[in-house]
């Protein structure tokens, strides 16, 4: 076979094969770990925040290719944003940046949003002056 056939588009495959920001952050300012009840995926995002700005982000994901790609993309997108901006982050951004996901895999991008929001919540818990992030979905993320 000459061509390569893929389940996901090339952007998703690239983020799955070469994930950006994979790992943990030492001394993270906020950590969120969430799970998707639908399929059992688990995603963890760690943030380094300085002067109200996300300086660095890392992820770890137990899940399918699109879950890994979604967390990779989400961390990419979020870096450099203010906490305020990040609070209105939506999974749609991940989907568009990835050039689309199969319908059955959209929940992976939701998981990335949830992990990010959980990390921001965790950050706020430690710094109660910051307002809570807004929710764009119904899922209940949970910080650990």
């Amino acid at each position, binding site marked *: 076979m000459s061509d390569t056939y893929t389940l996901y588009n090339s952007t998703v495959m690239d983020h799955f094969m070469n994930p950006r920001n994979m790992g943990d952050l030492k001394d993270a300012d906020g950590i969120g*770990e969430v799970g998707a*009840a639908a399929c*059992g995926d688990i995603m963890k995002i760690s943030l380094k925040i300085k002067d109200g700005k996300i300086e660095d982000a890392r992820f770890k994901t137990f899940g399918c290719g699109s879950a890994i790609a979604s967390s990779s993309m989400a961390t990419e997108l979020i870096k450099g944003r203010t906490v305020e901006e990040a609070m209105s982050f939506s999974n749609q951004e991940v989907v568009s940046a990835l050039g689309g996901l199969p319908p*059955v895999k959209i929940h992976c991008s939701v998981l990335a949003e949830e992990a990010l929001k959980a990390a921001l919540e965790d950050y706020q818990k430690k710094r109660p002056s910051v307002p809570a992030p807004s929710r764009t979905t119904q899922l209940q993320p949970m910080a650990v």
Partner: protein
Amino acid sequence: MRHVFLDHQSTTPVLPEVFEAMRPYFIEIFGNPSSLHQHGLRVRDAIANARSQFAALINAESADDILFVSGGTEAVNLAVKGVAYANQRKGNHIVVSETEHPSVLSSLEFLEKQGFVTSKVKVNPIGWTDPAEIRAAITDKTTLICVHYANHDIGTIQSIAEIGTIATEKGIPFFVDAVASAGWLPIDVQTMGISLLSLTPHRFYGPKGVGVLYRNRRARLVGVQHGGVQEGGRRAGTENVPSIVGGGLAAEIALREMPIRIAHTAKLQKRLWDGLKNSIPYIKLNGPEPGPQRISTNLNISTEFIEGEGQLLLCDMNGIAVASGSSCVSKSLKISHVLAAIGLDHALAQGNIIMTLGKDNTEEDVDYVVESFQKIVQKLRGMSPMWDEFERGIIDSVIKPAGRGKSFSEHAAAVSGKAAH
């Protein structure tokens, strides 16, 4: 890059000689067997020949006991519904093992809506159905027993002859779904007490587009695809002649080469499992150990702390074609019901990979897979929060519990706010 096809359970390539046998039936010998002229009569002979070839594969009493349908799924649907409807006056109860293929279970769900009742017999932790439990489930309303020969996911071989004896004794038709085993396990419908059996040649180097339902003449069966009077009135529709012809030859070759194919795949199966378990920690074999209880082509493993689709995709990127029973891989987002039936922990079901061997796999293939798979697992574990938490003692292993931390499932339930399913 080496290419290793390890998904022979999903389908196989057609043998070159099988393709050559099919070739004239597309253009030159294109007739419809229902036609009474040269073109029709000529293909009738070809179909009759294929019927004998399939009959030989399973030692059917007569070639007339072979019905041609469009595939494995249709053969199963015809067996289950066709026997249920035909015996509707006698009873409405069907006994079935819980690890049957969806084609059996969904056909039964359909029948349940029409008033039929099924008893699902449980399997043990390696997926084996105890014949005594089949016997216990039979009532005086039972008109059909359905137990597959080898399981499509975990390769467990069922005790067909024993169940056949019970069925014969009770006078109840016994349907064996052999789609995952025909061509790879010896089958003798007569000595095994089988009344109906389904198979499709695309699992043993024959074409797609054809399935076979064997039914002995004592088993009453009505057609479920209605129309013309093809196949003795039991299956309407113009026959897929090229696939029937090719399938027949594939059956003949499969019968002849079966001992070699079994020996070859059994050797590779052992080498592969040995290689994997010796190089990868926290990996589990699902179903029986390689040996007489397991079909020689199948390995079903669970790699702990990582999910199946990622493993599958990375295998594919390394030229290795495999399958998975994890929920992320299924269109329904559910783990394989077979893994659920053997009581596999959800975390392990998520990490599931199915490797199925074929006659053309080599030892080099196997060694390449072991080497690649080890790296793949390492890469994915490096990305997995579970592996990290396991290493940090927050969660425990299911495969080798060390008595520390909570279980993966407890953890997953906690972070998702819901129990895993």
